[in-house]
């Protein structure tokens, strides 16, 4: 039998100023199961709470209604108070008679009082049906998975590892380093990208707490915060890294060359290769698409049709450690983690979508990233800037900003943020390489919001003498050895034509292909561009709606290096914070299935946003739904959908809500 105590707060005059409190107290006394009702100047104050505790003891109350400010304000406070009096903290209900009554109906004392009485009535009706609820504890596996070995992932991995926790760093390419490794210099400081990145890569390789898994992808993710079970698919390298010493003989001797992904097709690499000199791990993989022997094996498998490929196997012959493993197959590794950091980064927008700029057909229309490779001392040209078409040294270079950014026509409305600055950097670098170079930069706006960015832009303008032309070029075409860039100078309001030796498109950032599929596996959301969505853009920038899964860097949106690093560290801090606890307390407000009522139509599974519902077969061979309370967030979507009313939501049961509605008419 419920014994309800109702405590009505004056909140100074905030509440009592707008209504007749005594009338509310009188009315409350008459409500069903109410054994005591009283009012208090400040219920949230220590004396106020004390009087509540006292009343609970004196009247043997087992349910408490506090009519005061919004539950969003003081529910935790009063739960503590109730708990202090030995009651289950969930046997409390709050009637919001301040924010939703006295403060909005101050103009009509009678109506405010009447409404307050009914709000109390609703709360009483609900509290009577409250059941004690008990939070559950789930253990935390203090092991983190970082997906993506770019600068963001590296930073996150190092920070977590340095805090003393095990980390698995997962990279889909043969080496970590990501896009930053491809850069020559970094704006606005112009320090050498490799020089600041590679030491961190080496730290990762040598860190006792970090296990590096390259050339691998996520296959499946199950479980929940503190207890993820992840299946990782390790692609076949065809090289046994336990034996390989990375001596390099194989890739020097390999006869089969193909365009290098790392150099964006500007140079070639052998079929057994490491992407670049400082790659980590510095051990090769065999490119099964190009390797001659693999082709030969395929030819044999296909019944020796057509021309016989050479049965090369040179690498195998010369390998001093016998590391070549032709029979190596992809393998699945299953690991358990307490938290996951997603730092899959970005890829450069493919300018082939721009028919008007030649759709990638002109060798001398290149992307900013390609220019990085041309400038880079360890790049395909050894840092000599030449035109891909004829190797000539460009004297006139045209830049086009916002390619694949801020362009509705191409379905890319967002600004990629880094292009303005890296274009300025390119202008400055080109001038340093060759004082006779003249740069023309077509821009929409120059966005230089960042520390020392504006100064950097001015350097390009004044020192490097780059000519900035406002406007997006309408067409680029070839004329003899020249590339003609047609545009309009928006400021002068006249058409302009630049005959350039080389055109650099400042292509924007887009999420890595497959970011959406990964997000689905992790059950986190992504926007129309497939950038991952954070829990809150301002206040929870590295969390997601799925507990224990964090996001950082350019996979969330365009970021420059310092921001990415900061986010990597932020995510790491969140993970470390999570790992600072041995167990997680889960909110007891979750769905629960009545197995006798459940008919196994499984509509609940379809609507659950958290994959928190599964099904099982009962002893009498019926299929029924089961809720994983650690995954359930208590939204009640399943309850709203359930026809047989088999699922219910603790703390917001159908019983309670119906009683609340009923109370208004009884």
């Amino acid at each position, binding site marked *: 039998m419920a014994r309800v105590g109702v405590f009505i707060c004056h909140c100074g005059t905030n509440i009592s100023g707008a209504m007749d409190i005594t009338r509310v107290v009188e009315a409350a006394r008459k409500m069903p199961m109410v054994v005591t009702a009283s009012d208090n100047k400040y219920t949230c104050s220590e004396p106020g709470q004390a009087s509540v505790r006292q009343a609970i003891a004196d009247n043997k109350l087992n349910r408490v209604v506090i009519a005061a400010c919004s539950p969003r304000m003081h529910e935790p406070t009063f739960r503590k108070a109730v708990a202090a009096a030995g009651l289950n903290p969930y046997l409390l209900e709050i009637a919001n008679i301040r924010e939703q009554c006295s403060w909005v109906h101050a103009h009509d004392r009678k109506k405010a009082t009447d409404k307050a009485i009914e709000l109390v009535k609703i709360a009483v009706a609900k509290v009577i049906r409250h059941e004690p609820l008990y939070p559950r504890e789930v253990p935390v596996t203090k092991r983190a998975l970082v997906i993506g070995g770019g600068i963001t992932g590296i930073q996150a991995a190092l920070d977590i590892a340095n805090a003393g926790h095990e980390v698995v760093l997962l990279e889909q390419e043969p080496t970590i380093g990501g896009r930053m490794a491809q850069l020559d210099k970094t704006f606005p400081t112009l320090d050498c990208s490799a020089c600041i990145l590679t030491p961190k890569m080496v730290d990762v390789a040598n860190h006792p707490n970090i296990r590096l898994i390259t050339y691998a992808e996520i296959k499946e993710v199950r479980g929940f915060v503190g207890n993820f079970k992840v299946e990782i698919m390790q692609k076949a390298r065809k090289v046994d890294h336990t034996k390989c010493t990375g001596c390099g003989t194989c890739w020097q001797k390999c006869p089969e060359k193909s365009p290098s992904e790392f150099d964006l097709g500007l140079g070639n690499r052998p079929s057994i290769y490491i992407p670049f000199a400082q790659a980590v791990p510095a051990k090769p993989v065999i490119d099964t698409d190009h390797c001659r022997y693999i082709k030969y094996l395929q030819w044999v498998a296909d019944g020796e049709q057509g021309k016989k490929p050479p049965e090369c196997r040179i690498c195998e012959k010369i390998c001093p450690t016998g590391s070549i493993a032709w029979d190596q197959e992809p393998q699945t590794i299953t690991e358990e983690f307490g938290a996951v950091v997603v730092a899959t980064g970005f890829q450069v927008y493919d300018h082939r979508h721009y028919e008007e700029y030649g759709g990638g057909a002109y060798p001398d229309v290149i992307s900013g990233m390609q220019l990085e490779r041309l400038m880079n001392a360890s790049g395909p040209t050894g840092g000599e800037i030449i035109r891909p078409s004829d190797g000539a040294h460009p004297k006139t270079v045209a830049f086009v900003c916002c390619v694949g950014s801020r362009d509705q026509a191409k379905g890319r409305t967002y600004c990629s943020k880094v292009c303005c600055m890296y274009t300025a950097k390119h202008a400055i670098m080109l001038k340093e390489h060759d004082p006779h170079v003249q740069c023309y930069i077509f821009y929409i706006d120059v966005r230089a919001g960042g520390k020392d960015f504006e100064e950097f832009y001015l350097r390009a303008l004044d020192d490097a003498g780059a000519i900035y032309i406002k406007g997006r070029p309408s067409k680029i075409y070839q004329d003899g050895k020249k590339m003609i860039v047609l545009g309009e100078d928006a400021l002068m309001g006249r058409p302009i034509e630049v005959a350039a030796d080389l055109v650099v498109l400042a292509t924007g950032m887009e999420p890595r292909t497959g970011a959406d599929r990964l997000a689905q596996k992790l059950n986190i959301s992504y926007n129309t561009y497939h950038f991952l969505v954070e829990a809150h853009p301002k206040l929870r920038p590295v969390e997601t709606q799925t507990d224990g899964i964090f996001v950082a860097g350019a996979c969330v949106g365009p970021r420059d290096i310092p921001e990415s690093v900061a986010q990597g560290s932020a995510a790491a801090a969140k993970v470390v914070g999570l790992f600072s606890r041995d167990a997680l307390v889960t909110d007891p407000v979750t769905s629960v299935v009545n197995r006798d009522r459940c008919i196994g*139509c499984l509509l609940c599974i379809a*609507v659950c946003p958290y994959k928190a519902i599964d099904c099982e077969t009962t002893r009498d061979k019926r*299929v029924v739904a089961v809720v994983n309370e650690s995954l359930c967030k208590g939204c009640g979507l399943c309850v709203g959908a359930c*026809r*047989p*009313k088999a699922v219910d939501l603790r703390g917001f049961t*159908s*019983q309670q809500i*119906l009683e609340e509605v009923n109370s208004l008419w009884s």
Partner: protein
Amino acid sequence: MIEIIRNKAKEWLEKNEDGCVIGYERASDGMTARPVFIYEPHMMGKLIFDETCVHNLSKYLLNRRGTRTAVVVKPCDSRGINLLINEHQLDRDSIYIIGVVCPGMKESHFGRIEDHPLSKCRRCLHHTPAVYDVLVGEPQPETASHDYSDVARIEGMSLQERNAFWKEQFGRCIRCYGCRQICIGCYCQECFVDELDPLWVGIRSCPEDNWIWNIGRAFHLSARCISCGECERVCPVGIPLMLANRKLEKESADLFDFEPGMDAATAPPFATFIKEETLEKVE
């Protein structure tokens, strides 16, 4: 036609001794049909099929879960099977579906066969079963478009008229739950109307409670009703239940572009959503 049904059923039952064939036999009035359960192949002669076979036999599959059953279905009934498979109630492999191309059923009552078709048949779109193991009869072309003139008639009334109309109709309800018991979509362990704790519907069989019961019933069948019309047929006090169901059918077709039971795979409207949809009717 009936011979094909008998032979197919016989063949099947001979292969599945523990099985049961659910079909139609002659009713006690000697002119209309009624459901029959046949367990021995030699009894197959009882089977009939004519324009009085109005019953939706798919409902019976629910009490035979986990056993092997052959069932004679009309197109509308077959959609019910898809519904039940979609809702994980039936194992497709355990049932043998004898789908009959439907000529349309006649309005028939005990001892009386009218010479006009059932209203549901007059408005039927699909004359070939949506799912079957064996098809009896030549597949018929679909009727091009829905005829919601009946619904439109009600929509055409004023609010007060509609209100009065349904009060009168639901007012007759005696809460025998024949509509629920015959309905293929109603298979809850315990119906919300019978639940006491919480009490969704009042304990009285009074007009107010009939109102919420009938709305609840219809809404639980929204985007699920396969319009076999059985609820309306069995109602002893002639409440035009299909008129309510069909409004929901029409709306869910408009709003969600969904027709229940056409296949077993498509996610029903309440299991999914489209972020971009606006549902002007709401906003």
